[in-house]
């Protein structure tokens, strides 16, 4: 056995504050942990892999004829809609997994290490962008297979993909907040679904707003998800950047501005 002798406490260089670069490096390590966990348990990617495939197929063939006359002309409407719906639903997982993680024994170890206390939270949020990317790529690929040829071109499609990922990341702060304050993982799932279901379905993701009753139309039009969907449609179908993109980004920024401090505060108090 090796006989390394320990440095006594009095001879160590100690600091009570974490530097910014250490916070970044700790967050990256925690994100790396998140990726390892995804690799070890690929079944937790079911939602981001199956949902885009099944939803794209189902919605296109069920509603395609009724809404747009035929499947081909429905694709430019439905693909951006399903993209937004899928990626944003995926962001719920952030909160659920955060709650599960915080209840596990390993969290005690993180708390006892001299690391930036925010790292487990920021790392988790960072690692989840991988999930959004997978969902985005799969949805577009699925659309392409079914015959969707976005007129905006690859560059604009890429911008649209990035926009969706950024917005999903912002929205994941809301669910991270639920994750931090809730008592069980299943309650996080429950609350999040209640919030998200009306937001995604009462939008223009699947049907044009004009076909809806007056009251619903009003809600659909102010719903930020609708703006995001429109922004994605504009980008990928015609390569234009309009107001909807600005509104989406402002909405994302507002969500982060409100929920990031709330989440961090609640998180610091809980740990």
């Amino acid at each position, binding site marked *: 056995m090796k006989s390394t002798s320990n440095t006594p406490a009095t001879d160590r260089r100690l600091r*009570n504050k974490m530097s910014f670069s250490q916070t970044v490096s700790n967050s990256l390590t925690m994100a*790396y942990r998140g990726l390892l966990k995804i690799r070890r348990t690929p079944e937790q990617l079911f939602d981001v892999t199956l949902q885009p495939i099944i939803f794209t197929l189902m919605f296109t063939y069920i509603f395609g004829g009724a809404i747009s006359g035929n499947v081909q002309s429905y694709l430019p409407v439905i693909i951006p809609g399903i993209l937004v719906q899928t990626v944003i639903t995926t962001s719920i997982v952030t909160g659920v997994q955060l709650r599960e993680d915080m209840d596990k*024994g390993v969290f005690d170890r993180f708390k006892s290490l*001299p690391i930036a206390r925010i790292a487990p939270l920021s790392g988790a949020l960072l690692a989840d962008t991988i999930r959004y990317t997978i969902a985005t790529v799969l949805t577009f690929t699925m659309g392409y297979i079914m015959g969707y040829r976005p007129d905006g071109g690859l560059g604009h499609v890429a911008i649209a993909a990035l926009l969706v990922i950024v917005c999903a990341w912002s929205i994941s702060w809301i669910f991270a907040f639920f994750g931090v304050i809730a008592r069980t993982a299943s309650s996080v799932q429950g609350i999040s679904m209640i919030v998200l279901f009306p937001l995604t379905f009462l939008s223009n993701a699947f049907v044009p707003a004009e076909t809806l009753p007056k009251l619903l139309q009003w809600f659909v039009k102010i719903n930020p998800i609708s703006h995001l969907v429109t922004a994605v449609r504009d980008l990928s179908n015609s390569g234009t950047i309009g107001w909807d993109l600005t509104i989406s980004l402002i909405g994302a920024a507002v969500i982060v501005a409100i929920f990031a401090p709330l989440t961090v505060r609640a998180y610091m108090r809980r740990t």
Partner: protein
Amino acid sequence: MSNNQGKKLLAVNGDWAVEACGLVKSFGTNRAVDGVDLKVPTGSIYGVLGPNGAGKTTTIRMLATLLRADEGSARIFGYDVVKEAQIVRQLIGVTGQYASVDESLSATENLVIFSQLLGLGRSAAKRKAAELLEEFGLTEAAKRPLKNFSGGMRRRLDLAASLIAQPPLIFLDEPTTGLDPRTRNQMWETIRRLVKEGSTVLLTTQYLQEADELADRIAVIDHGRVVAEGTVNELKASVGTSSLYLGIKNLQDLQAARQIVERVLNVGSSVSTEDGKIIAPMADADRVTDLLIAIRGAGIQLAELSVQKPTLDEVFLTITGHGVQEDASKASDKSQKEGVGRG
């Protein structure tokens, strides 16, 4: 306990690894820790001994910055656990009662991540992980996910994870609960080696034998309070004197022998139920000579004679008014249900 002298001597050089003063923690109306004072000298093994629910884990969690005390204060090498928590975390390694490693990752991945969090580069972290796995005999299982690790392997990995930064103070919450005798002995060896290398170890245990074997000093806690503190010998001495054990060859002589013992030593006696030995407190060693002569005179043949210091079991019984073993057996039931009462 009457160890004031020892306390004063050590306090002069001010070299405490742990100094806790009046720690209180309540969960609802339950005062889990109710004014605990602890002083752990640097470089020693300190045992915290107590039955189920005594408040051992809660105390350790407060000292390890995992839980904030309602009242009282604690210092680790002079640094306050609340105000200077990040410094304290650089000085401690914590092995909790329940394994604090990532179940879904492999042993190597766990150690690499913890090493990187502690500031090691990628290759240094990998080297450190390999080195620790080797040291704790886990190399073969290094790549397997922890889900199919045995309890003992998990415990060793957990301890390995606490030693990455070679901390000068190590908290071990029931390090040997659930280990087989051989693994337990290995764990004891590891703990002794850590102290030889300059670390201080604070461990909790429900096993008196373990505290006896390892600890330089012991605090006995019960219902959230320290009910006794001192070295093992001080604690034993506080209970009283040694006991005399007499084994009689022909059991029909037992009553006669007891009468002689009680008459000559002038004390009460008892008979142990397991092996039929006569047990009597022995205040005055000289009287034993008289006793032996008297027994020979009565024609009673002895099978065995021994003098034993009181066990910590008896110490515990005397101090708290209830035994530890009965609690400990319940505890091992409980510790199998992972995750009970974690904060």
